């Protein structure tokens, strides 16, 4: 159609908004990363220092640690949430009538803001005052403080994150399950698949795109969200729970080092965009294959 010249009008408002609230600030932040720009340094003057911030970053072991921690957090969290979410979705989708009532209930944890979820985590996991912490102590599962122990702090955060986000994944997967085509199931039944085979050979492959969407959203969030961790452990004990988001937050909002903080985030940003692009492409390939 000769609507080509009208295309601009369709996208213009969004383009302007996008430019103003995302692109310009982002580019501004990028310029920070080439400056020495910190309020907590008596020698920082905001001058252009080229790639010094990036050079510093290359030798920053804590930065590498934060990447390691991010993956230690991300991978089990996503696996756990995927499995639990799937289980939940299977149960919900087992009968649509049940699903209707359950979905708002299931989403309740998602509606508590991350700060609150983190706070509740801190409170309930406390071995002295918290209901879960006391049970863990009583059962002898954890000696001492869950969040004060490097080996249990990250699992605890994963658990809290899982509590908040599993329902979200479950809702996406439920939607996926409800939308799955009937035919391959019938084919599989006739082909002789028992329920377990049906699940692994039919349901799972068909549901994969939904998994990838959930994965995509969660991966992005895992690199963005710092509130839960900040409230629960501030990256501690030691740096056992210091993810890249927490690390970047610390540099930007604790040290007020916008130069280094921005450089950190730019690197993270490039990293995630590659990761997301990979996932997104995988998703598209998958759809193309269907």
């Amino acid at each position, binding site marked *: 159609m000769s609507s080509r010249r009208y295309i601009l009008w369709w996208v213009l408002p969004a383009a302007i908004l996008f430019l103003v609230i995302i692109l310009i600030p982002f580019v501004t932040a990028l310029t920070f990363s080439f400056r020495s720009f910190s309020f907590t340094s008596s020698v920082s003057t905001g001058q252009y220092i080229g790639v010094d911030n990036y050079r510093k970053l290359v030798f920053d072991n804590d930065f590498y640690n934060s990447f390691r921690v991010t993956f230690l957090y991300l991978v089990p969290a996503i696996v756990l949430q995927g499995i639990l979410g799937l289980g939940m979705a299977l149960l919900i989708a087992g009968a649509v009538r*049940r699903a209707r009532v359950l979905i708002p209930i299931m*989403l309740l944890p998602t509606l*508590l803001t991350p700060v609150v979820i983190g706070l509740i985590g801190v409170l309930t996991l406390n071995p002295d005052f918290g209901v879960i912490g006391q049970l863990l102590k009583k059962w002898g599962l954890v000696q001492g403080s869950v969040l004060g122990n490097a080996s249990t702090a990250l699992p605890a955060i994963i658990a809290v994150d899982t509590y908040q986000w599993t329902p979200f994944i479950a809702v996406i997967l439920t939607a996926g399950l409800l939308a799955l085509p009937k035919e391959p199931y019938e084919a599989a039944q006739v082909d002789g698949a028992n329920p377990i085979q049906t699940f692994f050979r039919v349901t799972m492959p068909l549901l994969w795109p939904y998994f990838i969407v959930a994965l995509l959203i969660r991966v992005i969030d895992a690199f963005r969200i710092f509130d839960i961790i900040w409230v629960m452990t501030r990256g501690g004990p030691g740096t056992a729970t210091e993810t890249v988001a927490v690390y970047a937050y610390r540099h930007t909002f604790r040290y007020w080092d916008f130069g280094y903080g921005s450089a950190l985030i730019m690197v993270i940003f490039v990293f995630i965009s590659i990761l997301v692009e990979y996932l997104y492409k995988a998703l598209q390939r998958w759809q193309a294959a269907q």
Partner: protein
Amino acid sequence: MSVEAQTFRPISPANKASALSSRRLLTYVSYLLTALLVVLFLFPWLWVLSLGFKTRAEIMSPNIVWFWTPTLNNYIEVLINKGYWRLIINSLIVAVSAVALCIVIGVPTAYAFSRFPIPGKESWFYMILTFRMAPAVVLALPLYVLFARAKLLGTFGAPILAHCTFTLPFVIWLMRSFFDDIPKEIDAAAMTDGYSRWETFLYAILPLVKSGIVAVALFSIIFSWNEFLYGLILTSDATRPVASQIPSLIRPHGTLWGEVCALATTASLPVAFLIFALQRQLVRGLSFGAIKG
């Protein structure tokens, strides 16, 4: 064939009975598991709810208090005395306006992405998706300066626009896939029926993605509702959303747990209500087959 012979031997009546009862057993087990999951995910929430009716002494007791006389003090203190009920209204204003703005702006854009031969379309689209993850930490200062210059600080405009940074990409991303799922013939039909492109979009296509829009809006509202950093730094006390105010209840002389819980549970109610009211649309919207990306 031997393999078939093994697999398909005739089944004796006894086997049949057990097969039937095992199916029934499976149903019961699935009911049980569902109940268990509901409890597992509802319990902490209910626990939080219960803490809102406890005093600090009861909350921070070395022995867990299971039975107590509920107090409304936390609710009265935080909602009325501190006046934080206004913050819930603020949250509603911010979340609903941001989402509404992004829907109004983003949906036509998503449609354009789905239908028009935009040069470099996929790259643009991917870029939008990528910026969904631009961390608030990095955008906060530039946005603060920007909004200060635009005299938006202290108005609802600031948090609303800031929430668009993640809502707009989300809306465009998901809505595009909804549109992609609608056959282009529908557009073609409406246009040959005498409708202009815009009229086609309004009258023929939009009604189709209604529940999709509801689902996207609900999720966006949840994200917006939970957003913390922008809501904190780009607002004044008159415009601050509730999520960003909660840390003010963490005090050096002790976190006001009762008030935190009272506020958090109260604050989640409007959205819970929304979801409850729109659940049918939500499920329909999500199972559009569209959130596949």
